[in-house]
């Protein structure tokens, strides 16, 4: 959970293939996440970023490839793979969704504790203590008893992050955590993510906020058409991309009109 | 089916006057009560149907039928949907309090029908504590109740016999004529008549309470039919004997 030797590999993804019907979305994806590293996954719409991220958490079952955590679990996918077997990946990672997907019928506190209490079956006192601390940490100490619908988008997304953190994962997965937010609320969520990165959490972050990626990510993985086109240190890939496709993409986002 | 475009108004003139004027006597009947009132193909027929047709002939009017369910038959009479009911309406004090009846054109007895192998039901007294299936339509619902039986209300003969044969009831009290007719068309030796009532049941044409003129006209017609043997002829046709007296 907490930062350790940054050189140690935490997650190795190799040869991920995934098709939806005839549409080949992932055509062999490889990348590595080291402990304490922030990897930003960027690329044009439809390039397969979301699909790749979901494969890491067993929400999508690749047709082939492996997802291996240091110290296990290590899952090799192939035809006929039983989706249930991918569940073990969720022991190490936790997902924060674009649309937060909080449980509307549970209070904020119940939202973030339902996993640890009912699934992980950890002691109640410990879970409550952790929840209180984390909610305070993201500035929501007074919202514990509120229901998600009464929160602003930015607050909901911060609860979503706490819900993921409560599971004590080794790797956090973010799929465009601010793209569904009101422009003014983007900042408050990015600040939280930036702090987590600075504390040494390992994360894979799909984002369109290039300025943020440049600021926070250690490594940028640029995907296009289901393959990894370019990988490298964030400052280099975003400031001086090598591949023409990367160049065009970065250009388009920085100067839209 | 019935076309049902004929309705009688209750305002002003009495029913007889109106029937005379329009030349049509409208009759409510079930159309599903064999052998009294039923449909053979698309033709409504049966003992009651033929009797009331003959009555109409004597009165010099055309007879028109409205087929309806028992549940609605008195409501239909009350609402003026038809002038009379010809559907084996048994005459009893409760009914006489509310409606007017012609003189009876069927005199029948109630019978207890049981399975052939039943030996412990031999009389109406022995119905006490037994289970019987009775149509709400008939007078025998009360008869069976009075005899101390537990009564399961049913829709008609077919259902009652099914319950009897499935062993769900011990007996059904019904019209002897119905039993005989059923045995004639669908011989079935698994059921039998276990006992016959001593008193007779009269069935007659029912009409609204204030239609005494109509009652008179119908009684006249029935008298004529009796006198010229027509009534007995119809009865012979359906039952092989004269049940009209």
């Amino acid at each position, binding site marked *: 959970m907490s930062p350790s030797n940054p050189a140690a590999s935490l997650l190795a993804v190799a040869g991920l293939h995934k098709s939806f019907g005839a549409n080949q979305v992932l055509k062999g994806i490889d990348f590595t996440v080291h402990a304490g590293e922030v990897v930003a996954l960027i690329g044009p719409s439809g390039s397969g970023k979301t699909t790749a991220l979901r494969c890491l958490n067993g929400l999508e079952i690749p047709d082939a490839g492996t997802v291996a955590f240091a110290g296990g679990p290590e899952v090799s996918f192939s035809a006929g793979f039983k989706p249930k077997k991918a569940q073990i990946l969720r022991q190490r990672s936790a997902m924060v969704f674009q649309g937060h997907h909080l449980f509307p019928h549970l209070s904020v506190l119940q939202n973030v504790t339902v996993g640890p209490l009912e699934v992980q079956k950890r002691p109640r006192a410990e879970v409550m203590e952790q929840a209180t601390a984390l909610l305070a940490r993201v500035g929501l100490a007074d919202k514990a008893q509120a229901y998600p619908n009464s929160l602003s988008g930015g607050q909901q997304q911060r609860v979503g992050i706490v819900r993921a953190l409560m599971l004590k994962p080794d790797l956090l997965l973010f799929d465009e955590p601010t793209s569904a937010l009101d422009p003014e609320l983007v900042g408050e969520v990015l600040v939280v993510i930036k702090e987590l990165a600075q504390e040494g959490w390992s994360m894979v972050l799909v984002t369109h906020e290039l300025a943020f990626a440049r600021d926070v990510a250690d490594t940028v993985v640029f995907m296009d058409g289901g393959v990894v086109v370019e990988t490298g240190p964030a400052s280099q890939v975003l400031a001086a991309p090598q591949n023409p496709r990367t160049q065009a993409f970065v250009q388009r986002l920085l100067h839209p009109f | 089916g019935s076309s049902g475009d004929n309705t009688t108004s209750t305002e002003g003139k009495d029913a007889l006057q109106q029937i005379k004027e329009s030349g049509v006597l409208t009759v409510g009947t079930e159309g599903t009560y064999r052998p009294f009132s*039923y449909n053979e193909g698309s033709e409504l027929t049966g003992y009651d149907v033929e009797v009331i047709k003959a009555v109409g002939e004597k009165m010099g009017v055309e007879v028109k039928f409205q087929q309806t369910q028992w549940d609605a038959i008195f409501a239909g009479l009350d*609402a003026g949907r038809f002038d009379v009911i010809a559907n084996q309406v048994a005459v009893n004090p409760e009914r006489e309090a509310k409606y007017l009846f012609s003189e009876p054109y069927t005199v029948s007895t109630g019978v207890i029908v049981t399975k052939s192998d039943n030996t412990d039901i031999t009389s109406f007294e022995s119905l006490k504590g037994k289970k019987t299936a009775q149509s709400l339509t008939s007078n025998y619902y009360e008869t069976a109740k009075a005899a101390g039986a537990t009564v399961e209300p049913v829709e008609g003969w077919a259902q009652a016999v099914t319950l009897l044969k499935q062993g769900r009831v011990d007996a059904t009290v019904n019209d002897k004529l119905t039993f005989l007719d059923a045995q004639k068309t669908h011989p079935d030796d698994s059921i039998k008549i276990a006992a016959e009532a001593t008193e007779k049941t009269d069935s007659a044409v029912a009409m609204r309470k204030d239609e005494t003129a109509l009652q008179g006209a119908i009684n006249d017609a029935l008298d004529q039919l009796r006198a010229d043997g027509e009534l007995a002829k119809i009865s012979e046709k359906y039952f092989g004997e004269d049940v009209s007296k």
Partner: protein
Amino acid sequence: MDSNWQLFLDSLWPLAQAAITASIPLAVISFAIGLAVALLMALMRISGSRVLSSIARVYISIIRGTPLLVQLFVIFYGMPSLGLTIDPWPSAIIVFSLNTGGYCAEILRAAILSVPAGQWEAGYTVGMSRTRTLYRIILPQAARVAVPPLSNSFISLVKDTSLASIILVGEMFRKAQEITAVTFEFMLLYCTAAGIYWVICLLLSALQNSLEGRLEKYVAK
């Protein structure tokens, strides 16, 4: 068994004929009128006027709260005592239409409300009036949501027409009863009737599916 088979074949045509000449037309006509009533009630419910909305509420509650049989009785046997005598077929159509109107009002209301408010505003913005927006923009989209529950209601209505025999309309179930009265084979007859209903219902379901498919593109995504 053999004679059962014969009876089945013999009764199939009369029953089907009764379905075609009575049950189905009765259901179709009543459903068409009922939908108009339902639309009116649904619009009253969402009109924002308290009076109109309350009238619609009471209407819906009476229709849903009392048995269809009683509604038939009241119109056919009760009205004459108020001096209004209505023939069987008109009575049946009135009652089934009003009944359909009550049940479907809530369905249409929900369907209309399911169309995003932005669609009303988009209609206004291209210059349409409220009524025009309703017919041109909202109802076509509401249809997609309304079709499955409306088809439920229609299937129920087809079966409910069997109650019309109580007011002298000779529909299919009545026909089955007439045949039963002669043959005493009520199980067989009723099952034949049920089979015919089922065929009608399957046809309706197929129609529903194809309608749903065609309306699919009408749904905002």
